[in-house]
């Protein structure tokens, strides 16, 4: 057995000490340390190899753990940034560890998905915001009395900021007198009771004294787990004001139309009445002129003349009179109404031929006479306007009994009715026009010629009398308006009869033109008493013939305005064209406006309104003859 030498032992000890140092470093976590494996002692060589192998293995484990740590740190960093809202963060580092690579893919994919969801949400939110914040209507969410959300428009509507409104009691914005209404509506809505989806009320603006009218539409929904109301608000103040203005305008137009009809009526009455007064005045004057002033009847005749003047004043007032809308129902004979209104209308519209066909023993009707006259006048005017070149107007009255199968359609009671038919031979209407004919403001006339209220008001008046109006028409075949008014059991009352009010002589022949025999008779006598010779014509055509024949003798033409065959206006123009130096005094029962004023503008010498007395007539004639002397050299 060999005993180890001292040098062997020393070498062993020294090299083992080296191994110990290396192991100590490995134990402290240093995976990079290595030891020289060279040794004369085989066991030490093997030991050192094992030590180096251990260090190498440790290095690999350390590298792996560090790889994990760095990878984990990067993921932690990226996720922290994402959590903080930075959706651009991505895991970018590569790793030899398969698990980390997979984790990187999943993490980045997750962030991509979050980014997409967030982008969609943001897009949706932007759209919602743009919609809610830029819409004209106010939008709010209300819980209890508090707003949970209001948009800018709503805040602006009330004059507050959004922040101020979120702090307010919503009811404080409502005007005190509408608060009960709003509370009741809100309570019913939340309770699920039937309630109008939209309604209107007044709210207060922040600035004192300014009230706005709003239209509110609300529905119930759940907001943050609690019941709430979602509302939209429209400021309808302008619309409301416009509506009020329109109603006012409608009323004004209705009034204007009514006034127009009454004016036509009054004008007709005044014309007739003035002609009558003319007769009375003329006769009274003539009788007085042939009487000594000491005669007992002289003063009475003077009184008659004064009363006639008062009567003439009354007709002047009548022309400017507009009825106040008082509803005076009296038993009235419809035939009488038709006769009076149509005669009056026919007198002013000579181009129409009227054909009345009125039933004998016609039933009475309980009506406001003036209103039915207005209805009839409106219908005559419509018929006249439908026949611009003239035509025929058929007026018919008839007693009829209507049963429920007929009256139900028109919502009236079955029974006895008086049927009034007005048929024209005008241009007619198509179905579409017929459907709308009674609508207020519907008109087929050119602007300025019709308000569209005539038939609408006629419809309303007849409806108010418990009757109805029907229309039948075909294009180019005229139209028939049929008015049904309930018959009355009463007899007609009697309307009271109307109450009645220095001479310059001349010579020469006066041509007196008038279609009224009464006027011609009295005119001749008045003129003759003034020293004139008189020739008469009952229309314009005749006047033209006489003047052409006797122009050398005729010093003046007294011309009536409204006449058949050829009216005053046309006669004047033709006379003037043929005989430029003709002297013409216009005479009319109408006041001096419209046609008369136009003729005067065209060079007519004067105007005298009927009734006139002998003094007025003598002065007028004398004035004209003096201021417009005849040209004796005239070739005509």
């Amino acid at each position, binding site marked *: 057995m060999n005993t180890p030498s001292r040098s062997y032992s020393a070498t062993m000890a020294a090299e083992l000490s080296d191994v110990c140092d290396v192991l100590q470093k490995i134990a402290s*976590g240093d*995976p990079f340390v290595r030891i020289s494996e060279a040794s004369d002692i085989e066991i030490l060589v093997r030991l050192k190899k094992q030590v180096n192998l251990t260090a190498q293995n440790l290095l690999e484990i350390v590298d792996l753990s560090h790889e994990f740590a*760095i990878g984990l740190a990067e993921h932690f*960093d990226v996720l922290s940034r994402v959590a903080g809202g930075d959706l651009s963060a991505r895991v970018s580092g590569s790793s030899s560890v398969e698990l980390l690579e997979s984790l990187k893919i999943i993490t980045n994919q997750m962030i991509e998905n979050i980014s997409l969801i967030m982008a969609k949400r943001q897009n949706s939110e932007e759209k919602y915001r743009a919609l809610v914040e830029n819409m004209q209507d106010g939008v709010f969410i209300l819980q209890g009395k508090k707003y949970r959300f209001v948009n800018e428009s709503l805040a602006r509507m009330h004059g507050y900021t959004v922040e101020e409104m979120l702090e307010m009691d919503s009811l404080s914005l409502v005007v005190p007198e509408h608060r009960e209404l709003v509370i009741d509506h809100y309570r019913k809505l939340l309770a699920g009771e039937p309630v109008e989806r939209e309604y209107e009320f007044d709210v207060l603006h922040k600035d004192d004294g300014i009230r706005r009218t709003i239209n509110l539409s609300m529905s119930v929904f759940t907001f943050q787990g609690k019941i709430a109301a979602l509302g939209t608000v429209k400021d309808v103040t302008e619309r409301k004001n416009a509506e009020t203005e329109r109603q006012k305008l409608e009323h004004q137009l209705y009034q204007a139309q009514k006034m127009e009809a009454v004016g036509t009526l009054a004008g007709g009455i005044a014309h007739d009445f003035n002609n009558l007064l003319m007769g009375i005045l003329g006769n009274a004057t003539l009788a007085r002129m042939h009487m000594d002033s000491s005669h007992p009847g002289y003063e009475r005749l003077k009184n008659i003349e004064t009363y006639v003047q008062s009567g003439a004043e009354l007709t002047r007032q009548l022309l400017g009179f507009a009825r106040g809308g008082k509803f005076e129902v009296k038993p009235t004979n419809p035939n009488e109404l038709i006769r009076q209104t149509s005669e009056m209308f026919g007198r002013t519209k000579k181009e129409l031929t009227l054909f009345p066909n009125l039933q004998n023993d016609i039933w009475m009707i309980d009506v406001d006479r003036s209103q039915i006259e207005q209805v009839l006048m409106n219908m005559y005017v419509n018929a006249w306007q439908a026949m611009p070149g003239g035509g025929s107007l058929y007026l018919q009255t008839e007693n009829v009994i209507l049963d429920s199968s007929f009256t139900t359609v028109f919502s009236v009671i079955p029974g006895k009715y008086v049927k009034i038919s007005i048929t024209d031979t005008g241009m007619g209407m198509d179905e579409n026009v017929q459907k709308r004919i009674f609508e207020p403001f519907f008109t087929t006339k050119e602007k300025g010629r019709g308000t569209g209220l005539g038939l609408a008001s006629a419809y309303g008046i007849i409806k108010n009398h418990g009757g109805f109006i029907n229309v039948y028409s075909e294009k180019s075949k005229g139209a028939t308006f049929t008015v049904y008014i309930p018959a009355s059991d009463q007899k007609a009352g009697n309307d009271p009869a109307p109450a009645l009010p220095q001479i310059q002589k001349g010579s020469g022949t006066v041509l007196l033109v008038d279609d009224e025999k009464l006027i011609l008779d009295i005119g001749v006598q008045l003129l003759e008493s003034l020293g004139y010779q008189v020739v008469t014509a009952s229309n314009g055509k005749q006047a033209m013939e006489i003047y052409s024949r006797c122009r050398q003798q005729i010093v003046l033409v007294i011309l009536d305005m409204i006449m058949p065959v050829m009216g005053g206006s046309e006669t004047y123009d033709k006379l003037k064209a043929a005989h430029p130096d003709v002297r013409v005094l216009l005479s009319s029962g109408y006041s001096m406006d419209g046609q008369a004023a136009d003729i005067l503008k065209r060079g007519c010498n004067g105007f005298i309104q009927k009734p006139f007395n002998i003094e007025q007539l003598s002065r007028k004639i004398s004035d004209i003859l003096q201021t417009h002397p005849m040209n004796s050299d005239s070739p005509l």
Partner: protein
Amino acid sequence: MAVVTLDTIGVKCPQPVLKIAVIAPGMKPGDILEVAGDCPTFERDIRAWCLRLHKVLLSVREEGNNVKKIQIQF
């Protein structure tokens, strides 16, 4: 600009890096983190972390006893 210190002396790698990772989200751009450590792989790990997370390694200072102080700018 804040300077934050972190002592990882006696803590074996890779724990210093994991500690830095936890602190990092609270650091603002421009802030400086000064980390002290004595693990043999400390510097190597910090360098790798800076490289991966795009942070600036400002300095590495030997403090003796295997201790190093590393400054990182965020």
